[in-house]
């Protein structure tokens, strides 16, 4: 099971993760979407929210479209 951690800290939530947590990935087996408390990535990063973390790899400025693609990539690697 791959855990997709979506940062739900205030910054990420307002900048779009509020939309990401509503996405449904039931069709892609082996993927679990988790809303996480602030991952703390916004504090010292030059990149922009919202952040998503999968297997310790961090993605920034994630849009619903981008998340679809990331999930596809991750599941293909299985």
């Amino acid at each position, binding site marked *: 099971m791959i855990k997709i951690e979506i940062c*739900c*800290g*205030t*910054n990420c*939530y*307002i*900048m*779009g993760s*509020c*939309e990401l*947590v*509503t996405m449904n990935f039931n069709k892609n087996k082996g993927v679990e979407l988790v*809303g996480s*408390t*602030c991952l703390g990535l916004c504090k010292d990063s030059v990149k*922009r929210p919202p952040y998503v973390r999968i297997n310790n790899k961090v993605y920034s400025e994630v*849009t*619903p479209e981008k998340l679809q693609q990331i999930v596809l990539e991750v599941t293909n690697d299985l």
Partner: protein
Amino acid sequence: MIYNNIIHIKRDVLYRTIKSIVTKDFATLNKIPYEIAPRDSENKRCCIHKDRAVLKYRVMAALGHSVEDEKDELMQLSDYGFKTMGSTKFDNRNLTVIHDACRSCKLGSHYISDVCAGCVARPCTSICPKGAIKVRDGRAKIDTNLCTNCGKCTDVCSYKAIVKVPVPCEISCPVNALKKNDLGIATIDSEICINCGKCIKTCPFGAIAEKSQIVYVLNELREKKTINALIAPSIAGQFPGTINQIRETILTLGYSNVVDVAEFAALVAQEEAEEYLHKKTDILTSSCCPAFIECVKKHAHGVEPYVSKTLSPMAMAGKDLKEKNPQCINVFIGPCLAKKSEAYKSEYIDYVISFEELGAHVMAMDIDVLQFESMGKYDKIGYGFASSGGVLKGVTQNLRDNGVWINGEKIDGIDKKQVSQFKVFNKLKKPYEFLEVMACEGGCINGPGVIVNPVISKKELDKIKS
């Protein structure tokens, strides 16, 4: 409202603007367009320079200025910042058109798409009364000089190849307040506009911006006066965390008090029920939605006698606070644009900011909502007002307690058709005794200033109510 690039940019602009103001580093205001659209980034419009030009105007609107008022194109954003900081006066034009962002969509033009098969029957050419359609290179084409946009051709094509190209802002405006000037750029007639904010949500180029009052509020916060934050019931679910966590967050921002408008919403339901029992007309309509009230005042005088005289929950809360302390400053925090207009005319409310603006302020101060205690005491009643059907439910419940059973009806969202019905309201059959009207589909949780998708906030709201 579905999250999109325009919303993302809008929030980014607000966040950076507020950050510049709270750190008193006005020079950074000038950098905002370059920070959001740096040299190597992907351009959203024709080129990055246009992106930056539009961003400049967005910051200007966030600082509380009308883009239309720009006299000197060389005036810098920092100067606009100083200008806002030095004054406490703003006008009642709450929407501003960013002319550079407007695509100047042509009104009602027709277009023959690739679906056209260049068929043999060619009904389009024969039905066109102006002879504007000719078939060339195996495809029908419209001569735009001859076309009068009657639309007859769209119905006869078997392939449905002819489409009317919509003008999103004009279609969305329920009262036709949006007009095109000679250059095809949208202009808003503030005499007609009811401040519903539908055009902001609809324009895919983000050409219509909301003038923010947040900088004035930041100014007041700095002076350490008694500032009350009046939070609308629809705040439920707008942030990660519970209502109590949101309240704590707002206090940390520097407000002296957080007041639940939901409490007063419950009072409004009681008072409207009372009013119903003593009414002289056959029906009564709700009065909470300011866009509806403005629509009635400007476009449908026939409805006026039926509208409840009860104050809105916002005004009621403001009145209560001003009576206790006339020196206090009331800031209403809600999802609504029309509330700005209501507050402008009311003596009880000083400023109105949206959830997005509050969110950007929280971001700029780097506060994590989830760090606070989640459980706390607050009244659950009145939160129902935030979604469509809530006012109706509140009023009927109160009447039922008095032993009166009524038929209620709700109007969920005002559009062009609905406004034309309001205009002939006297002649309509009214098989109900109480009518709830909300200008936004789904209620306040779908207002122009919300942060999250109404689907989520509806769930959160239901949790609180139960």
